[in-house]
């Protein structure tokens, strides 16, 4: 990206803005206190509570809760779902971003709008759509039963619902970036004799890699953490169709505090790691 050279030192600009706000000191402080208090109360305290509760009966209880067969199965299933959906949505996201930013075609704006659909629809509805399509009473239900294919209340349903929920992440990160970059570097590569595939790997991918990783990261976080849509299609079969978020719920409903919060602590750790990586990637991609 081109370096923008500021004729005015941005730090000094900030300092001057602060000067302009100086006389309303009490406003400044009360806003800061509100913001920090809000984050402390609604984010830091609950986060701390997750770990306090998870370790409330000691480290040993924590580990034994995590090594329970059902919890291990839930962790495995969550990893499997992420392992399938994230690569698929990465490919889809790059393809969609490429189509939208590089080609002119009818219905392009409709496609752009539809990509955002999973964000605007309640996850429960998303899950329900798949039940209506593939459930026993659904459109394809009879055919699926006749051919002995299980989608709803089975792993394929969970993967489908997660795919649906997470498909916008990669595309949404790439579209604005690729729009801003334009296609001249790719045209230059083609004019120098590079083929389409070579151009994609040597020119396009290096230019979008940080934004792509950022999209993949968000996609992964959501794929592992999705509750609503997965809850509708999973059927909550212990050891078979429970993902980690569902495992938290099941344990919690059974008053198994350590079980619920030990699973929750893994998701919380995932969130923290995601946040750290996200900050690093944001810095890299804005360079």
């Amino acid at each position: 990206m081109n370096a923008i050279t500021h004729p005015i030192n941005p730090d000094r600009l900030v300092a001057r803005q602060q000067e302009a706000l100086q006389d309303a000191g009490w406003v400044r402080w009360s806003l800061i206190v509100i913001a920090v208090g809000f984050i402390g109360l609604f984010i830091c305290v609950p986060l701390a509570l997750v770990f306090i509760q998870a370790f409330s009966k000691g480290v040993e209880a924590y580990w034994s809760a995590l090594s329970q067969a059902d919890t291990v199965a839930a962790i495995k299933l969550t990893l499997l779902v992420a392992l399938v959906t994230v690569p698929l949505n990465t490919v889809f996201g790059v393809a969609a971003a490429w189509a939208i930013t590089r080609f002119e075609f009818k219905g392009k704006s409709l496609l752009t709008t539809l990509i955002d659909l999973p964000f605007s629809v309640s996850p429960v509805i998303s899950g329900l759509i798949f039940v209506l399509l593939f459930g026993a009473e659904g459109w394809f239900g009879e055919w699926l039963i006749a051919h002995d294919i299980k989608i709803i209340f089975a792993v394929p349903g969970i993967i489908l619902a997660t795919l649906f929920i997470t498909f916008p992440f990669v595309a949404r990160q790439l579209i604005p970036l690729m729009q801003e970059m334009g296609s001249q570097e790719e045209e230059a590569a083609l004019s120098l004799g590079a083929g389409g595939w070579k151009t994609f790997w040597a020119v396009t991918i290096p230019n979008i890699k940080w934004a792509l990783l950022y999209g993949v990261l968000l996609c992964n976080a959501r794929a592992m953490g999705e509750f609503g849509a997965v809850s509708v299609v999973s059927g909550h079969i212990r050891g078979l169709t429970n993902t980690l978020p569902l495992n938290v719920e099941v344990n919690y409903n059974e008053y198994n505090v350590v079980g619920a919060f030990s699973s929750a602590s893994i998701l919380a750790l995932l969130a923290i790691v995601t946040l750290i990586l996200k900050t690093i990637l944001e810095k890299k991609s804005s360079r």
Partner: protein
Amino acid sequence: MSILLSDISKNFGAFAALNHINLEVPEGELVALLGPSGCGKTTLLRIIAGLEHADKGRVIINGEDKTDQNVSERGIGFVFQHYALFRHMTVFENVAFGLRVKPRRERPTDYILSQKVHALLELVQLDFLHDRFPDQLSGGQRQRIALARALAVEPSVLLLDEPFGALDASVRKDLRQWLRNLHHELNVTSIFVTHDQEEAMEVASQVVVLNHGHIEQLGSPSDIYDRPANAFVSRFIGQTNIFDLEEHDADWLQTAGILNPHQEAKVAHVRPHDIIIEKSTRGHTAPATLKDWQHLGALIRLELVKNSSNGSTAPVFAEMPNDQFKQLALNKGDKVDLKIRQAHWFH
């Protein structure tokens, strides 16, 4: 290598960008495609490159029909207005790119590749920047690197899309001269697009004037300046005074020495330097009054107002060398006589 375009047409929806373009560029020429924005010049260049495809017509480079060939197979060098350097690669890698993507059989060894790239960087006088990234270079440096990159694959033709369009005025002037010299040295058939007539006249050996998707005139810079084919070319190339016989008062045109009774044409275009000014002794019957003047360096531009109550009131501009103007010792408000050295007549 020569370029032959036959009957090229291109539409964008209902808009006809190019209309039956026929053009031949002989080997070794440096041709400017000149025209106002939206005239189709960039589209034509991109069609020659294969970055865009014509709806109709053929592109023939060195006798070979390239119309259906992909841009990567045409063996052209393309230079973009905004450089389009690969931002994640060093200057060296940018220039080396075209060599690295060659099929394995034609790919040079690392040693030859490195020598070739450094030779090209020396050609554009920027070898000392070989390990920098594009965003560490100035605009002029970037454009020279882009040119070196395009030359690396030894293209049969070099196509430049507004190569100086994004640069400062002073850098642009230097680079124009530099491009001319470089072309002289390499002698590769080149076409560049510009909307700046001065640039086209200064750099090109042949100028193609385009307007509304067709060619208005093709010729050497002096041809186009001295013998414009039509009113559009005359207006577009350099400054001109326009006298329309239907708008101007005939008597005034006669006294100013513009009207030629034998003319069939209706509009006269007179270059400012083709108007000779003298201090008038005729008083109120003099054709014009000096309203103001501006220094253009070596030349003075005089703004004259017609001494006539009817007809067009547009000012007339004349230009003369600085010292000649001093000799005339004119003041604002002086009455002057005009003599027209030469006019171009159009219908």
